[in-house]
C-alpha cells in the first residue's frame, strides 16, 4: 500500500525549469480541489532588517495593479477559494486552495502580487501594521514559540537566527518592504508547487503569469549557516514554565536526527498510552516534553521542548530528557529498529496531507533534486547502529542551545540539567 502510493508520488511528480528559471512542480492524485503555492525565497533568513519579511508576508493579497484588496477577497470568495500566506525561515509561501477549473484566476491573482503589488501607504498603516503587531504580540506571549525563536537566534545568530516575527523595537518602513520585495521577487527566487493540477497546465499558466518578472538578477544571497549555540533565560508569567534543550549542525539534515527524534519523541502511537520513549516513562506529572526537529537547506536544529506548570517539575523533566538524549548514543538492536520504523513512517505519512506534500516538495524543488519518498526512506534505512551512534555523539559534542522561559530564579541552568 505504501509502495503503491510512493510510486504514484514519484510518477506524477515532475520538476520543470521553465524558460527563465521559475521552477514548477505538481502532483495530481485526482483530488477534487486544487492547491497552488507560490514559494518565494523571501523568508526571514534573507531579510535586510528585522521584521521586514514578516511585514511583507502580511502585505499579501492587498491591492495590486489588477485588483484592489477588496476585489481580491470578494472575487475569490465568489469562487469559493481559500487564500493564505505563510512565512518560514527560508520561504514566503502564498497558497490558494480552490475547486478544479479555477486555476487561471488564482494563479493570476497570486502572480499579480509578485509582479504588480502597489504597496500603498494607507493599506500599510491601516491593514498591515496592526496585524504585524498583533501576530508579534501573540507570538511573544506563547512561551513555546518564543523559546524556539530565541533558540534559533542563539543557534544560528544571523540568517536562520532572524526572528520570524517583527519586534516592536524594530521600526519597519514601507520603503524597506518595497526594496525587499523588489529584490526577492525575481524569477530565480520563485517556485510554484501544485497539488490536484497537472504539471504541464500549471507550467503554462505560470509562464503566462510571470512573464513580466525580472530574471533572477538578485537571487537571494545568504551566508551559509554556522551553528553556534548558547544559553538564555527570559522572565515571563502567565504561561507554562518552558525549557528548550537544543543541538544543531550545519549541513543538510542527517537522517540519524530523524531517527533520534522518533526515538525520543514521547508522542505515543496508541492514544492514552505512555508510549515507548525513554522520556515519557520518567517525567513527573504535569510536565510534557516534545521533540522538535527543524531541518533547513543548510543547517538543522534538533531539540526537546519541556513545558510544565511548576519550575521544579520542568527541571526534573529536563534532566530526564537530557539523560535520555545522551544515552541514546548506545541505541542498537530492536530499539534502533523501532526508532527507524517510526522515523520512516513519520516521513512517509507526512505526504498524506497537502501541507506535508508542499513541505517535502519545497525542500527539493529549489535544490533541483529528484523528489522521491523512496530515496528519503532508503537514507533512513541505511543508518545502522554505528553510524547512528557517531551522528548523535557528534551533535551532542557541540555547544548546546538552552532557553529557559518562566520564573527564571527557579528554572534550571544548562549545567544543572546535565548539558
Amino acid at each position, binding site marked *: 500500500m505504501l509502495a503503491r502510493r510512493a510510486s504514484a508520488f514519484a510518477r506524477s511528480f515532475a520538476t520543470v525549469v521553465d524558460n527563465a528559471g521559475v521552477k514548477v512542480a505538481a502532483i495530481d492524485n485526482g483530488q477534487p480541489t486544487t492547491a497552488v503555492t507560490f514559494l518565494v525565497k523571501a523568508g526571514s533568513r534573507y531579510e535586510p532588517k528585522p521584521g521586514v519579511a514578516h511585514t511583507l508576508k502580511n502585505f499579501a493579497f492587498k491591492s495590486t495593479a489588477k485588483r*484592489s484588496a*477588496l*476585489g481580491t477577497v*470578494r472575487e475569490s470568495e*465568489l469562487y469559493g477559494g481559500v487564500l493564505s500566506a505563510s512565512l518560514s525561515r527560508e520561504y514566503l509561501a502564498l497558497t490558494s486552495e480552490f475547486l478544479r477549473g479555477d486555476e487561471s484566476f488564482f494563479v493570476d491573482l497570486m502572480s499579480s502580487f509578485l509582479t504588480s503589488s502597489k504597496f500603498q*501607504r*494607507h493599506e500599510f498603516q491601516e491593514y498591515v501594521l496592526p496585524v504585524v503587531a498583533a501576530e508579534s504580540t501573540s507570538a511573544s506571549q506563547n512561551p513555546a514559540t518564543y523559546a524556539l525563536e530565541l533558540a534559533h537566534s542563539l543557534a544560528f545568530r544571523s540568517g536562520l537566527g532572524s526572528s520570524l516575527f517583527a519586534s516592536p523595537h524594530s521600526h519597519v518602513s514601507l520603503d524597506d518592504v518595497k526594496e525587499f520585495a523588489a529584490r526577492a521577487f525575481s524569477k530565480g527566487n520563485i517556485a510554484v508547487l501544485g497539488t490536484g493540477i497537472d504539471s504541464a497546465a500549471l507550467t503554462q499558466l505560470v509562464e503566462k503569469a510571470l512573464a513580466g518578472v525580472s530574471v533572477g538578477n538578485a537571487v537571494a544571497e545568504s551566508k551559509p549557516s554556522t551553528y553556534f549555540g548558547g544559553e538564555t533565560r527570559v522572565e515571563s508569567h502567565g504561561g507554562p514554565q518552558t525549557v528548550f534543550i537544543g543541538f544543531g549542525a550545519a549541513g543538510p539534515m542527517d537522517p540519524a536526527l530523524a531517527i533520534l527524534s522518533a526515538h525520543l519523541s514521547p508522542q505515543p502511537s496508541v492514544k492514552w498510552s505512555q508510549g515507548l520513549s525513554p522520556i515519557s516513562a520518567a517525567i513527573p506529572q504535569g510536565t510534557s516534553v516534545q521533540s522538535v526537529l527543524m531541518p533547513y537547506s543548510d543547517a538543522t536544529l534538533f531539540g526537546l521542548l519541556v513545558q510544565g506548570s511548576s519550575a521544579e517539575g520542568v527541571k526534573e523533566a529536563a534532566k530526564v530528557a537530557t539523560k535520555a538524549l545522551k544515552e541514546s548514543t548506545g541505541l542498537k538492536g530492536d530499539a534502533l529498529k523501532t526508532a527507524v520504523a517510526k522515523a520512516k513512517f513519520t516521513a512517509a505519512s507526512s505526504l498524506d496531507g497537502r501541507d506535508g506534500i508542499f513541505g517535502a516538495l519545497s525542500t527539493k524543488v529549489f535544490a533541483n533534486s529528484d523528489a522521491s519518498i523512496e530515496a528519503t526512506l532508503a537514507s533512513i534505512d541505511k543508518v545502522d547502529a554505528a553510524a547512528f551512534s557517531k551522528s548523535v555523539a557528534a551533535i551532542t559534542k557541540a555547544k548546546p542551545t538552552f532557553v529557559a522561559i518562566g520564573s527564571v530564579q527557579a528554572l534550571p541552568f544548562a549545567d544543572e540539567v546535565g548539558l
Partner: protein
Amino acid sequence: MNVLGPSLAPYIRSSRTLKKYVTPIAHWYADLMGYRKMGLKYDDLQVEESPQVQRALGRLTPRETYDRSFRFKIASDCDLHHKPLPKEQWSKPEDDKRYLQPHILNVLKEEEERFTWDTMTVQRK
C-alpha cells in the same frame, strides 16, 4: 453630486482649442479668488465635513498634514487681522497643486467598488 462638486475641467481638457483658451482664464480666476493671499492652497478650501474627505485626509503623509494645519493657522491669523499677508508670503501658483484631490478620487472609486460588490448578482457560467 460628489464632494468635489461639479466640474467642466475634464471636458475642457479633452479639447485642445478649448484648453488653450480657457486655461489662462482659469489661472486668472484662481488668482482673483484671493486664497493665495492668505497662504492657502486650493485643496485647503475643500469641504472636509464628509466621510469621504475624512478618509482621504487620513491618507496624507504626516508632513502634508502638518503643513496643512500650519496653513490653516496662518489663514486664521490673517482673518483676525482682517488683512491679507505681505506679498512675499503669498502661496506661489507653481506650488498650488491639488494634493488632496487624487486621494478623494481614490476613496470615491473604492466606495463605488464596494457598492458594486455588495449589490451584484452572480451567475456561475
